[in-house]
């Protein structure tokens, strides 16, 4: 890095920062200004500028580790990537124009300065973009795993009775998992009755219905009985409108009624006890 540029930035850090802050705030989209307070915005922006400046001073490894910390923080704050890359551009533009005004950049050395600026900025932009995308990739893959773990749990509630509560949208991937977990679980827990609870499924269309019917058929093949519970009134209506026949199922509108029916099927019931010490 050219020492004139370096010196200029260090000596005029505050005025550059203020100019940069004004320009940036004007351009910051709602996503940024809405989610963070003024204080956080200014604090983080200062950190951002300090970081840019430290790139000039510190060693490569030091900068990379600082940049990675900063990127993580920004991602957590929910700042868009475009905002950060734009911020870098604006920073470069301000420094360059100020240096032109004060006569440090002249007609003669202009090309040389631009070239140096570029070789300083480009790796930094690349680094930020890389940091962002790897943070996202990690987040997405973690969420995917978390979602898979959540997607179709099978819970034994009584001897021979298990419940599969389904919450959220069912896509092809999840439908496969439901089937797998059901069959494995039924065998593992020696279930006689399996209750599939769809209280938390927002839309039951023909695909979802088809998968549930197939799952129930499969459960029957391994020797257990399948019950469909948690059918909200509006879902019951749409199922009827679609013309889907659920007669082969025992259906109950609540999980509670389902469990009672399952107990009855396995010749048991819940009773109140009196006089227990």
């Amino acid at each position, binding site marked *: 890095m050219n020492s004139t540029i370096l010196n200029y930035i260090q000596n005029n850090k505050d005025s550059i920062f203020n100019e940069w802050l004004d320009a940036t705030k004007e351009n910051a989209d709602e996503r940024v200004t809405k989610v963070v307070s003024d204080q956080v915005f200014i604090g983080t922006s200062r950190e951002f500028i300090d970081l840019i400046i430290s790139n000039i001073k510190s060693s490569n490894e030091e900068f990379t580790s600082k940049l990675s910390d900063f990127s993580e923080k920004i991602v957590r704050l929910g700042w868009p990537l475009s905002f950060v890359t734009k911020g870098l551009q604006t920073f470069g533009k301000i420094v360059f124009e100020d240096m032109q005004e004060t006569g440090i950049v002249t007609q003669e050395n202009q090309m040389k300065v631009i070239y140096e600026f570029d070789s300083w900025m480009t790796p930094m932009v690349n680094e930020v973009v890389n940091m962002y995308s790897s943070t996202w990739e990690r987040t997405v893959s973690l969420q995917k795993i978390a979602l898979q773990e959540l997607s179709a749990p099978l819970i034994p509630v009584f001897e021979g009775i298990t419940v599969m509560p389904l919450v959220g949208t069912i896509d092809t991937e999840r439908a496969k998992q439901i089937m797998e977990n059901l069959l494995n679980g039924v065998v593992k827990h020696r279930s006689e009755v399996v209750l599939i609870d769809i209280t938390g499924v*927002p*839309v039951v*269309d023909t695909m979802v219905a088809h998968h549930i019917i197939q799952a129930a058929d499969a459960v029957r093949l391994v020797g257990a009985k399948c019950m469909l519970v948690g059918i909200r009134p*509006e*879902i019951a209506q749409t199922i009827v*409108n*679609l*013309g889907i026949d659920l007669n082969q199922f025992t259906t109950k509108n609540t999980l509670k009624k389902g469990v009672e029916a399952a107990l009855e099927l396995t010749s048991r019931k819940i009773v109140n006890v009196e006089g227990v010490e």
Partner: protein
Amino acid sequence: MENQSCVKIINEWDIVAARQLGRNVAKELGFGTVDQARITTAISELARNIYLYAGQGQVCIEKIYDGGKAGLRIVAVDSGPGINDLRQVMEDGFSTSGGLGAGLPGVKRLMDEFLIDSNPGTGTDIKATKWLR
């Protein structure tokens, strides 16, 4: 235009986006929970058919007004392979994909009006309307 918004259907999750859009518009118009469920389910069927049979297309949700009546119209358009025999696909149980074959006849029953226009080679255009009462 304020009264129409669209979702491109390219992958499976776009179906969820289309449903969400439809549910929001239905709520805005004042449809009750049962009709909201009918509308979202109809959108789900049409969007999934696009995804499955045409590969890609578009689902638009329109607010429509006729005299004193307000309604919601789903417009599902694709330029996929189209449908040969319209009468056949409207029969309960007809499916070329091993499905239940309940989607299209189901949408017709879920909604108040149903229009299908399809030609082999040029694609499919379906309009389904629900009136607020």
